[in-house]
């Protein structure tokens, strides 16, 4: 019981003065709000004082394009070699020579690739995994998405190892030199994760060209950070005994790192690998806008022609790829950590790797057959089928039958909730916001945090983006609130019932990987363009971490504490409210933090359905090919995320230290 009932004397002395300080601060800001017509400069940032940072960035980009193109283009060429190979191997056929008399080496047969997926599943996870991965590949083929899926797969197959290796080295560097971590790596990771990808598409196009390689680099920027974080965390968590043992055994520092520390950190590293795969697949739609093609392009094209069913099928094919890659890589890592097979010298290759040998034989065999029998070369149209009409009928039926009820709900939300809140936020004086956020930073983390968050807030004002920033904050805020109201109870329910957890897991996996574009357009059909649609799409995407972390947080409360509570006479309800929930609070806070970041990422995409915020600014910059404007808007979005992240971390650190 002591866990919660904190004696008042333990509190820091200053804590009683804080409510008073906040009351004064809020009164001041209220005064500023009321006097906003007299103190116009404090309410609306004066347009003649806007600092033209976007023009500076534009000028830098032009200079880079002129002077560094040879360098960036040679990177494109180098990375293009493995990528082209993978593309030819899986999707496009090798073409030697040109024109009509070119010699064509066929791509791998789809039958062979499905069989290889089956065997990979069998090698690492047994029959169930084999059926899952083989089945999902077959599903992709039968839906007629084979070529697109293989284009996407080749991009992922090259990008993911690239991300993992880069992430690993950056993580090791940061771990070896804590200074570089604090001042370079950590802020860099924050920016990489929070600047929306759309903001750097134009610089990518200018420097690396309109090609799959640009798409791959954009994917890498977005997908590498979790690997770096996982590496740093994994290395830091290796028990000191293991590390000391390595030294005693006479390892050089290099041997210690590669032979002792990294293998011990494997479970954490695998979490990083999983996130890299998921994020890379998240990027395929955006990557298709700068030359990648594949499933992401199918989704875009289908949606432009309002073929909702086709878009959904392409989206589900992405989900299928994600599931196979994730499950097989997890199983592979688990197998390797369990089984350190003794390699017997002289053993034949096919004895040592029976599945691999069989896979190679099957791939070669079916591909050769493909040159004679067309069935093996391309998925025959006769055996493909589509569920598109069914999706269409379902959506039409909902539209016709439920629209009126939905419309009433939408109008209520718009008139009584969204519009008033929006008006309040957009009218909020920038100086007041800088002051209040700085104050919060000071209370939670001291002068340095205060300076950081106040400066980041001010950036949004001095670049002339204040109103759009506040529009973003309003929509993100409401969506996060709703996502938490829905997600945390679901997470709690999942933590208390294994069955419910099993039911809900596939749904949240799908929500995370299914490209958001797929479900935005059906939502538009029901809710029209505008803020309600954006809010619903955002909540659907951002609810995932709220559920996951809550569930995880409650489940990891040490059982002995719960026993202690039960022994001391707590009812189930008391145990839950007084012991489990407070102990899970830091984890739940982390979940909310992630929810905020996810919501921000999604709000940007919602500019495609007519929201008027920073996302719109990014899209305008994209269509005008104005790199400076896009990056500044992207930075403003990143700064919202970073402010929320820092304040939340400071808050949860305090909560944790109070809980002991």
């Amino acid at each position, binding site marked *: 019981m002591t866990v919660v009932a904190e004696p008042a004397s333990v509190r820091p002395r200053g804590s009683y003065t804080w409510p008073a300080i906040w009351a004064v601060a809020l009164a001041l800001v209220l005064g500023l709000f009321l006097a906003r017509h007299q103190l116009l400069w404090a309410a609306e940032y004066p347009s003649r004082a806007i600092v033209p940072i976007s023009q500076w960035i534009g000028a830098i980009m032009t200079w880079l394009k002129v002077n560094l193109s040879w360098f960036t283009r040679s990177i494109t060429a180098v990375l293009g070699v493995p990528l082209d190979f993978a593309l030819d191997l899986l999707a496009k056929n090798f073409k030697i020579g040109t024109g009509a008399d070119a010699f064509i080496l066929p791509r791998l047969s789809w039958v062979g690739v499905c069989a290889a997926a089956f065997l990979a599943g069998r090698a690492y996870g047994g029959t169930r995994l084999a059926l899952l991965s083989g089945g999902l590949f077959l599903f992709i083929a039968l839906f007629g998405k084979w070529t697109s899926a293989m284009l996407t797969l080749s991009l992922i197959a090259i990008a993911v190892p690239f991300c993992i290796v880069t992430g690993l080295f950056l993580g090791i560097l940061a771990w070896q030199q804590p200074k570089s971590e604090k001042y370079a790596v950590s802020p860099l990771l924050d920016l990489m994760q929070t600047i929306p990808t759309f903001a750097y598409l134009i610089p990518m196009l200018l420097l690396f060209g309109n090609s799959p390689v640009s798409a791959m680099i954009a994917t890498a920027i977005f997908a590498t950070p979790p690997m770096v974080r996982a590496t740093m965390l994994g290395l830091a968590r290796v028990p000191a005994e293991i590390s000391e043992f390595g030294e005693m055994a006479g390892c050089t520092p290099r041997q210690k790192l590669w032979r002792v520390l990294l293998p011990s950190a494997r479970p954490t590293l695998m979490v990083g690998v999983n996130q890299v795969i998921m994020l890379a697949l998240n990027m395929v739609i955006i990557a298709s806008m700068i030359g990648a093609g594949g499933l992401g392009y199918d989704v875009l094209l289908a949606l432009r022609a309002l073929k909702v069913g086709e878009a959904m099928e392409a989206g589900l094919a992405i989900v299928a790829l994600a599931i196979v890659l994730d499950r097989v890589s997890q199983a592979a890592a688990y197998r390797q950590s369990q089984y350190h097979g003794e390699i017997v010298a002289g053993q034949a290759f096919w004895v040592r790797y029976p599945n691999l040998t069989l896979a190679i034989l099957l791939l070669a065999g079916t591909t050769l057959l493909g040159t004679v029998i067309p069935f093996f070369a391309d998925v025959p149209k006769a055996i493909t089928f589509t569920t598109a009409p069914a999706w269409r009928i379902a959506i039409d039926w909902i539209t016709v039958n439920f629209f009126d009820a939905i419309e009433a709900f939408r109008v209520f939300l718009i008139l009584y909730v969204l519009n008033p809140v929006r008006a309040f936020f957009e009218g909020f004086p920038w100086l007041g916001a800088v002051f209040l956020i700085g104050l919060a930073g000071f209370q939670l983390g001291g002068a340095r945090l205060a300076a950081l968050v106040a400066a980041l807030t001010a950036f949004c004002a001095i670049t002339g983006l204040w109103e759009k920033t506040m529009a973003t904050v309003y929509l993100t805020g409401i969506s996060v609130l709703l996502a938490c109201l829905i997600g945390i109870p679901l997470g709690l329910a999942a933590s208390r019932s294994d069955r419910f957890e099993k039911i809900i897991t596939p749904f949240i996996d799908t929500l995370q990987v299914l490209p958001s574009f797929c479900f935005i357009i059906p939502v538009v059909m029901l809710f029209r*363009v505008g803020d309600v649609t954006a809010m619903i799409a955002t909540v659907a995407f951002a609810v995932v971490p709220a559920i996951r972390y809550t569930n995880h947080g409650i489940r990891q409360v040490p059982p002995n504490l719960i026993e202690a509570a039960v022994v001391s006479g707590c009812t189930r309800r008391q145990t839950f409210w007084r012991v489990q929930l407070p102990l899970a609070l830091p984890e739940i806070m982390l979940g909310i933090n992630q929810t905020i970041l996810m919501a921000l990422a999604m709000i940007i995409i919602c500019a495609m359905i007519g929201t008027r915020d920073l996302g719109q600014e990014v899209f*305008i910059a994209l269509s005008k090919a104005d790199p400076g404007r896009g990056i500044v808007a992207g930075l403003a979005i990143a700064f919202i995320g970073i402010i929320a992240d820092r304040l939340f971390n400071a808050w949860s650190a305090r909560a944790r230290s109070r809980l002991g």
Partner: protein
Amino acid sequence: MTLKFAAMGMATLAAASLFAPASYAQAPESSDPIKVALFDWTSVNLNAKIMGGILEKLGYTVEYPTADYLSSLTTGLTNGDLTLAMEYWQTTAGEAMAASDATGQTENLGPLGPQAKEEWWYPLYMKEKCPGLPNWEALKDPKCAEAFSTPETAPNGRYLGGPVTWEGFDDERVVSLGLPFTVIHAGTDAAMFAELDSAYQRKAPIMLWIYSPHWAPAKYEGEWVDFPAYTKECYEDPAWGSNPDAAYDCGKPTGEIYKYAWAGMKEKWPVAYNVAKNYKIDTDVLNGLSGQVDLEGKSPEDVAAAWIAENEATWKAWAQ
């Protein structure tokens, strides 16, 4: 890549030494791939596949990278990442084309043929509720505007405009013509047509921006609003038109659809350049081909191949 290039290089060297006189100044002048951009709507991709198909018949290597519509004008096309792009609509890409021309690294290959039309559009069933249509003055009637309203715009009508980046000037038009309408911007045209489809099925009120050539006017029955015809003066001179104090008191301009090429194409692939420059397609033909893809579900490749097979004489003449 390098390996492939080496192989190609050897092949061309061998070919050059054997048949040097014959292959000189004939297609293909270079075996480097010609990159024809794909965007995210049907007609441009059909044109790209037809163009690419012709070039392949002439012996060129063709690739089809996907690209972003407006920004490609000042990125990919300026440095040869894209060689050709088939559709830039004067009506929506005016500013971007001007920016592209200013770089001097791209070339406008002239009009594609069809005239782009864009205007306010409503489904035919709305005529009952607002009988004065298609004359624009009917929209000034508050009752008529209310028929197009939703609760949050009432009593104003709701007009669903294109993305803010399209140069539509609808906010200005509503003010200068005194229309009791509120302009809502859809972020993408996919969202715009999703709303249309939903409204059309329920016979619900909707007024929105539609353009042609496009599958929508073929699929849904409706009409364009008749605004005072566009003139240059209308957009530039406030005194013009029914409102003496404001510009934009007229309809939207119709416009050409232009083809653009990377400026280096002319030197590197002269014959392909000629084909691209001469390439033209008729509005009705293009609408028909788009319909085959969007409404009948054929693949753009098949439709393009059929066109190429049927019109061999036409495109052979382009290559001269």
